[in-house]
């Protein structure tokens, strides 16, 4: 099986789908000639031409707005939003239009739209280019929210997103782009709402997303050496959210720690924690804990940014607390 980076896997998903369906088009700032700010769409313009791979002006509202109109009229747009932080500029198009048209129109609309966006901190890009905003999208009925952590997951989930007839927000943590993994050359899908157990264990369940999956795996390895077995679950999609896999795990381990790079307050972990408390209360031997970023914008200065991003150490401390 070939090895691809996270970015290449996403590129491959574009290629196989665009070869299959002539109604798929790609649009975004610098996606064509430049190949995307993070190089994810490199080569697509050469292969598919500028009718299907559109370099746009800097106008998120119009990029997403025209995609919503085109999607409701029969095309399947795959839009790149350069940084998820820019969602504020075009959120109306996504949540008030794409997310609500089918409902408001009594079911008589179909919006097969994908909006891909780079998210996350760690490269000194500061407050307006480093956020994780999954919870924002989870909160908006009518949208689906996908957040892969590996190249294999990224390709399968993006193909699924492209084939889904709903507006899908596809979140790519920017520090993952160079991560390598085995990825099939051909098309394949991963269903939404299906979590992946990335590591089995019986002492504590850790639910993590995106880059934090790898932080959790690193911490799990260290904790194994101290006799603590950590089960790492990657939800892969936050809406729909596979609570069944998480609850089954909690019934086995009796302890739940949730790890995400989003701000802790009202982050995606809050939803998972609330649902787990509701459904598995009698199985818990300790309070549910969330390890996440503090409630402030992403800082610029390197030591501050490092302190902002949840670490293996902070996860290990939380695990030890629930093990007390």
């Amino acid at each position, binding site marked *: 099986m070939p090895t691809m980076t996270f970015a290449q896997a996403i590129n491959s998903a574009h290629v196989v789908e665009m070869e299959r369906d002539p109604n798929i088009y790609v649009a975004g700032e610098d996606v064509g000639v430049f190949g995307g700010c993070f190089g994810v769409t490199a080569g697509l313009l050469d292969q598919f031409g500028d009718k299907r791979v559109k370099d746009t002006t800097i106008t998120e509202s119009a990029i997403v707005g025209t995609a919503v109109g085109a999607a409701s009229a029969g095309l399947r747009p795959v839009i790149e939003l350069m940084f998820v932080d820019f969602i504020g500029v075009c959120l109306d198009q996504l949540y008030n239009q794409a997310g609500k048209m089918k409902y408001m129109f009594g079911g008589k609309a179909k919006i097969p739209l994908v909006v891909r966006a780079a998210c996350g901190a760690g490269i000194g890009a500061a407050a307006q*280019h480093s956020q994780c905003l999954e919870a924002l999208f989870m909160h908006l009925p009518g949208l689906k929210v996908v957040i892969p952590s590996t190249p294999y997951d990224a390709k399968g989930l993006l193909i699924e997103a492209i084939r889904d007839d709903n507006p899908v927000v596809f979140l790519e943590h920017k520090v993952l782009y160079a991560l390598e993994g085995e990825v099939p050359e051909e098309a394949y899908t991963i269903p939404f709402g299906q979590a992946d157990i990335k590591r089995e264990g019986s002492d504590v369940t850790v639910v993590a997303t995106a880059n934090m999956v790898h932080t959790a795996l690193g911490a799990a390895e260290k904790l194994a050496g101290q006799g603590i077995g950590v089960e790492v679950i990657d939800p892969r999609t936050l809406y729909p959210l596979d609570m069944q896999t998480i609850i089954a795990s909690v019934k086995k381990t009796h302890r739940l720690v949730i790890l995400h790079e989003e701000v802790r307050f009202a982050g995606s972990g809050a939803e998972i924690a609330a649902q787990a408390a509701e459904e598995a209360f009698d199985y818990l031997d300790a309070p549910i804990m969330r390890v996440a970023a503090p409630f402030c914008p992403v800082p610029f*200065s390197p030591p501050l940014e490092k302190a902002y991003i949840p670490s293996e150490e902070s996860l290990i401390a939380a695990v030890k607390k629930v093990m007390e």
Partner: protein
Amino acid sequence: MDLTNEQLVKMYTTMVKIRTFENRVAELFADGKIPGFVHLYVGEEAVATGVCANLTDKDFITSTHRGHGHLLAKGGDIKLMMAELFGKKTGYCKGKGGSMHIADLDLGIMGANGIVGGGPPLASGAALACQYLDNDGVAVCFFGDGASNQGTTHEAMNLAACWKLPVVFVNENNMYGISSCTLNSMCVPNVADRAAGYDIPGVVVDGNDVVAVYEAAAEAINRAHQGKGPSLIECKTYRHRGHFEGDPCAYREDAELDEWKEKDPIPRLEQKLLEMEILTQDKIDEIKAVLQKDLAAAEQFADQSPYPEVSELTTDVYS
């Protein structure tokens, strides 16, 4: 021209200060001393300089991601800027903002901005406050060719025109929004042509002629002071370096860059000042030497300043 010799020399010095600062930032960035991204203003110095030479501390500017030039032209301190770029607690934003978010409200600098088109609505808001408080201040919005196509820019201009807000929209048309060229992103040849759509004056100036920029800005600012509302000034210019440091610029031709380097604003003014005998070569060398010394001191200050404490991570979120 109405400019005094002193004003001309001041504008020359400001442009050289910006150029010197930006070139050094490029070196420091390449050396790994400045984290994140930097977007340098090299080549566009006349725009910030010519406009800001008309402004006082009670006037506001909004800037862009390519904001070092605006900040320095509006009176920004190079030590505090350098420290901010290094991420030190002595920087303008205590190290928490970085290149794209430097601001100093005491100087009326409402910040560089990481969102293209983020500035125009802020500038109209500042102009509204000046009008409401009747304090004779004006706001200047620097925005690029990329931002001229952004919905928020349209919205801000339209409202400013309707409410006759004292704001001047200064478009820095350097022809590129990263890789997207104005030839492909707009159907009118000039951003200023759109002024007609708001019934406000729109003029095109040679953005690399600091005196021309100064004069156009003076007229627009005067109009604002008279309560006649906003204006749009389009400055044709060019960035010598990439969109960001590290940009290979595969989307533009070397010949085009060479052509624009011939029109570099700094040698043009230098030549004029020498010809008019307002400056001698010795005086020019002295100006440059002083700027280099100041820059070295700024760099040392930034180097020796401490990083912010981790305990400061969540402070300054609220007033």
